[in-house]
């Protein structure tokens, strides 16, 4: 089992959505998803909530990989604010790639960003910005 597979087992919601972890290294995480009917809204395109959920996860994975397991256990990070630009529609059958990156990691706060791109042509479909708080379990 790779480190990535271990991490994915602890993100039940990402499993529910059906995304796969493709890469995880310090400050970087990449998920992939083949969009299905179950991911769509009444317009027949991918629901924006799928994009925001996976961008959030990709950012959190990038941050977790940078902080390391011990730091993550000691003071888990949690999203406190997000902002997403939904730039283009995604249809069932298309594969999307979600990349998360850490912009800045400080003692009690971290800033990350994520992008969703269509795998076939690399077009930017969504962009998100995430603020995480690092909360110490002790005290």
């Amino acid at each position, binding site marked *: 089992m790779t480190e990535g597979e271990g991490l994915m087992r602890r993100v039940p919601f990402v499993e529910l959505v059906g995304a796969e972890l493709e890469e995880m290294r310090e400050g970087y995480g990449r998920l992939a998803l083949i969009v299905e009917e179950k991911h769509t809204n009444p317009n027949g395109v991918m629901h924006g909530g799928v994009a925001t959920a996976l961008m959030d996860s990709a950012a959190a994975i990038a941050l977790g990989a940078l902080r390391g397991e011990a730091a993550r256990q000691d003071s888990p990070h949690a999203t406190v604010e997000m902002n997403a*630009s939904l*730039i283009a529609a995604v249809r069932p059958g298309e594969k999307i790639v979600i990349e998360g990156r850490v*912009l*800045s990691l400080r003692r009690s706060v971290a*800033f990350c960003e994520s992008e969703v791109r269509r795998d076939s042509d690399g077009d930017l479909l969504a*962009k998100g910005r995430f603020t995480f708080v690092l909360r110490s379990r002790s005290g």
Partner: protein
Amino acid sequence: MQLIGAREEEWREGYVRLALTLESKHTNPHGVVHGGVLTTLMDEAIGGVIASVRGLEEMGIAPHSTVAMNVSFLGSARAGDEILIEARVLKVGRSIAFGEAEVRKRGSDAVIAKGGLTFSIRQRRG
């Protein structure tokens, strides 16, 4: 932008860079650059970069204006520091455009602020 005193260093299709040497008039009571200076310049730079893609003629027919902005303040800068504001286009559509900007101190890789802005493109009436 004249009030703030920033200058345009580079302006080409899809990329705009502004520069500003910070003075005490740009600071807040803590002595660091006021966030409003950074948001104003990011807005200005992204508005400019979207103009560089759309062209002045199209802008005359349908001006674009900011409808949403979201900024993360990652670091700080003080009077005497020179900051650079770089803006890029994410997407220009028919009625909406997305851009983003990063602020750094000259000569440093560290991003001190990052913003994502949304612009509405509105046809003039008549």
